[in-house]
């Protein structure tokens, strides 16, 4: 069963996907492995950019170029693992793991995913968010959708 819903425009713009605002990272520990070009944030990881906040236990950032700043700086992918929570404006999405692909501009959440907007709750096993089209597609297993009655009347 596939449940597709329209997200409010430019939600999830954050996390370095397409906006130029500074991204703030906080964690207990950070390991930069220059040989395989990864930076691993460990322990209460919080990433903030503009309206979007990502919380997770562990975040691996794949980058190109050198960490000290010479050469082009490119973050190609972020892999979050462990109690992932992505909040943006009125939306929150949670799951066991998430992958942010900055090239394809998509976020994929997996593992008992819950997407809430106001009182509406959608559950599923995999949520694909396409930032360009603001399209969110919940896939897999029994997609449960809980629409709070009053939210239907309020908005047309």
């Amino acid at each position, binding site marked *: 069963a596939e449940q597709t819903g329209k997200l409010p425009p430019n939600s999830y713009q954050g996390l370095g996907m397409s906006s130029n605002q500074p991204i703030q990272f906080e964690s*207990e520990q950070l390991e*930069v492995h*220059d040989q395989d070009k990864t930076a691993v944030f460990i322990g209460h990881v919080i990433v903030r950019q503009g309206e979007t906040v990502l919380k997770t236990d562990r975040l691996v950032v794949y980058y190109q170029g050198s960490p000290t700043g010479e050469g*082009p700086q490119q973050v190609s992918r972020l892999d979050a693992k462990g109690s992932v929570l992505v909040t943006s404006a009125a939306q929150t999405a949670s799951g066991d793991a998430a992958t942010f692909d900055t090239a394809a501009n998509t976020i994929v959440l997996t593992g008992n995913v819950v997407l809430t907007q106001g009182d509406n709750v959608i559950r599923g096993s995999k949520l694909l968010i396409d930032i360009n089209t603001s399209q969110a597609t919940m896939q897999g297993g029994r997609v449960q959708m809980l629409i709070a009655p009053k939210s239907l009347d309020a908005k047309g």
Partner: protein
Amino acid sequence: MSGIAANRAFDSGGMEPFDGSADRVRLFAMAARESRRVRRLRLMLPALGALLCVIVIVATVVTRISISLSIGDLKITAEGLAMDAPHLSGSDGKGRTYTVSAESAVQDLSDTRIIRLKGIEASVIQVDGSRANLLADSGVYDSAAQTVVLKENIRLKNSDGSGGLLERAAIDLATGSLTSDSPVAFSSRLGEISAEKMGVEKQAGTVTFSGGVRMTVNPGARSGDTGKMPSAQPEPSDRNGSAPISSP
């Protein structure tokens, strides 16, 4: 008669033996041999000196590290042998040149392997001309353990505008690793990072920040972009070591 002329006079060919008695001839021949040996020695010594020089030069060329060490005046103080303004410079043969200087260096008399340094300044110039400068108010060099522990107000400034502030840094000269157990802060035009502790393992190519890390990345800043620069030089007034986080 100058030495050389006198020597030739002794040369056996140039003198007739006295009244031909055998022992006098023998005596004379021995003296001549003696003088030849002396002459050979006199020639050999300068040659030996020259040889030594060549060896030294070959040694430095072979190790390709030309080290020049100049020291101001040398005096014995209470704590030990004090050297004024030692200055060490050299190149690592791969085109990188480095200079290390200090306002003073005191060698501990009780343990001569320990040298206490004041007002340290080190700079490394890469092949591409980019330059990294490290300044520290004080440090201790342990020649046995091959470590340098820098203390107080360590500032890193690189020619590309990036910089860093540390309060302590222990450098293992053998493995090239560096650890700091007190706050560190680094910034470059792409962002800033601050943490309570830091460790650099050069061989493994890993840098570990721990004890609470905060980092800001400006995706907008391309490498060549000289737009709004985060505080490239963290203001020394920021004593708690954490670089200011630019609010979005």
